[in-house]
């Protein structure tokens, strides 16, 4: 297997047999051919986990807490109609004992306190119709009191969840096709 050899030649990388978040979303076990096929690309497997941590549990959260981030993850998973990912985010969110406002944000409410209403509007737009984004949408976030680091951190979170849901969807289709 040339591919195995090329990975081995890169050295020092341990291709883990531990189930990660993506395996759980797709329903893979170490015996599945697709579980093994994912490990042809250890840099994708590891990189996705590192990115997930960087947007959900960063060392510096820029003042955007884990409860808010997980609630937005749940909201976006539901917008993408991905039940398994939504259940995954819901379990993580509920473990933090979120406030009723955060739960309402997670479950798609729009009649929220500010700045949550402004965040919700933005997250829905960028998730469902990124093509419609304009400079005015970023100006709304700034007007709601978000700093530039918060606007970038929020953008990375939104973009990551939309990446995550597509990888999970694609792998699930491979598994069932």
């Amino acid at each position, binding site marked *: 297997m040339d591919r195995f050899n090329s990975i081995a030649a890169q050295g020092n990388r341990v291709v883990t047999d531990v189930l990660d978040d993506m395996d759980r979303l797709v329903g893979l076990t170490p015996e599945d051919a697709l579980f093994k096929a994912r490990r042809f690309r250890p*840099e994708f497997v590891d990189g996705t986990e590192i990115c997930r941590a960087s947007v959900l549990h*960063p060392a510096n959260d820029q003042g955007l807490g884990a409860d808010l981030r997980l609630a937005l993850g749940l909201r976006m998973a539901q917008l993408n109609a991905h039940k398994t990912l939504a259940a995954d985010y819901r379990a993580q969110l509920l473990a933090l004992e979120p406030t009723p406002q955060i739960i309402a944000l997670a479950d798609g409410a729009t009649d929220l306190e500010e700045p949550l209403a402004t965040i919700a509007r933005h997250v829905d737009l960028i998730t469902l119709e*990124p093509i419609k984004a304009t400079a005015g949408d970023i100006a709304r976030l700034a007007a709601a009191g978000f700093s530039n*680091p918060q606007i970038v951190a929020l953008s*990375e979170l939104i973009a990551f969840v*939309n990446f995550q849901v*597509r990888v999970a969807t694609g792998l699930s289709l491979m598994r*069932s096709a």
Partner: protein
Amino acid sequence: MISSVRLKPLTWHPHIAPVELSEATPEQLEAMKVTPSAKKVSEYVRTLAHDPESYVARTVLFNAIMYVDGGLDKPARELGALGASIVNGCKYCAVVHARRHAELTKSDDVVTALYFERPEELGPRDAAIYNFARRLSAAPSEATQEDIAALRSVGMDDAEIIDLIHAISIFGWANRLMHVLGHAESK
């Protein structure tokens, strides 16, 4: 016969003020991999350096997905990126990756067919890749098992399809940064 398209590169400008190198924290400088003597770092990098941890993590993953050796050929990855960028409306990304596809294949044929919205002129392998890229990029996804079957029917193995899924998906990410945080202009 339609004349071939040669797209000119665009420049990107952020909607928010990027990090100034003179005011950057040590972590931001490390993320941008610049020394205090560096004169020029792109506005894109300086904008995303506002949140250095996610910038570094994503950049490492992006480079692996688009440029790692073996597996899916590079033009196919670029075609996946282009299909996603068209659906997501990121003009800047679409031009960059259309140009890269043309460079790699030494042909403007695919880019021309897509620019004139004539995907029926694509060959069967390119059509299977492009259709999957468009359908997986919709929100919610419109991709089906038939799309995977179409990729397999043109000879793609599981490792190549996994590479393609990642190339399309990472542009579900990149497009939501470039098109949301800034705008593209002609040079």
